[in-house]
């Protein structure tokens, strides 16, 4: 039961990604580094997650295909940017989210990470379709997110529920 950086990386490349825009976190550290080292993909680091959606929108307008890679904390910060770019602009924006606090949602865990509590209800409220990817057997979720984004001309997400190794 694990998420493997090289497999997610390969699944992204199969979608024809030219750019990754986002911010690394502890969950995506290994995955992010692998992307940075890939000469066929440009990784653009931002200072705050809202920038990622705006830059990705600009890349799309200019004919490139970017994926946004951020943590769920940053998604909450970036709500207006997501609304005002990908959503309002009707951009088929695929999003990879790292799910901080996912394990704290276990009923056995007393102390919840509030960002995990907020994440899925917020995405539902914002109308962003998503699936939660727990291990490599669910890699097809990445392809489905891209297909959903393309068919709807709107954002669609995969939330990666564990540390990527």
């Amino acid at each position, binding site marked *: 039961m694990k998420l493997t950086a090289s497999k997610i990386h390969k699944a992204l490349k199969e979608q024809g990604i030219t*750019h990754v*825009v986002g911010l690394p976190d502890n969950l995506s550290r290994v995955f992010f580094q692998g992307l940075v080292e890939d000469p066929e993909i*440009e990784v*653009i*680091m*931002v*200072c*705050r997650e*809202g*920038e990622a*959606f*705006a*830059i*990705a*929108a*600009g*890349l*799309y*307008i*200019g*004919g*490139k295909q*970017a994926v946004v890679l951020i943590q769920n904390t940053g998604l909450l910060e970036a709500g*207006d*940017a*997501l*609304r*005002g*770019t990908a959503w*309002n*602009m*009707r*951009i088929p924006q695929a999003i990879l989210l790292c799910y901080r606090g996912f394990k704290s949602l276990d009923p056995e865990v007393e102390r919840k990470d509030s960002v995990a509590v907020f994440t899925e209800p917020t995405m539902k409220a914002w109308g962003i379709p998503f699936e939660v990817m727990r291990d490599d057997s669910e890699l097809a979720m990445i392809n489905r997110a891209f297909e959903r984004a393309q068919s709807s*001309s709107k954002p669609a997400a995969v939330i990666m529920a564990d540390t990527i190794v």
Partner: protein
Amino acid sequence: MLNKYTCLAKLAARRKNEIIITCMGTAKPWEKLSDTALDFASVDSAMGHAADLGLGIAIAQPHRRVIVLNGDGSMLMSLGTLVTIAQRPCQNYVMVIIENGTYEVTGNQVVPGSGIVEFETMARGAGIEQVYTVKDEAEFEERLPLIFQGKGPSIFIWKVERGEEPVPTFRESLADRVRRLRHALLSSC
């Protein structure tokens, strides 16, 4: 102090095939000067994100110059973008920060730090080397050609008088305006 409308008219007179991104207080005045497929109003979009939207276009279209006409209030909403611009420098990227000290379209409320903030200092501190503060007509005439030539990223800060622009609205939706610009860029590749 500069007059925004005069500055925009002079910019429009020199402009050829550059992409122009406007927002808030510049969107409607610019539309009166130019409304081609390469003019894009970042209105009904994400607050404070015209600068980074333009950066994405500049990265995707390295052979086209992108000129973002940003406001000071909009710039303050995403100051980290100055760092992002510096760490991913695009030679074809130009931003004009039109500094009037207020949120013009919402009633001219004074922006945080008005009269204190130095955008040139912040931009240089972020790591951008080509930064020019323009306070009067003589400086404007001297600096205007630089917007269209030389290697970016470049930042120009126009110190302008307060204006009275209302909240801009457009007949076409934001998505339609995106389609128009994207089509123009991709069909000319």
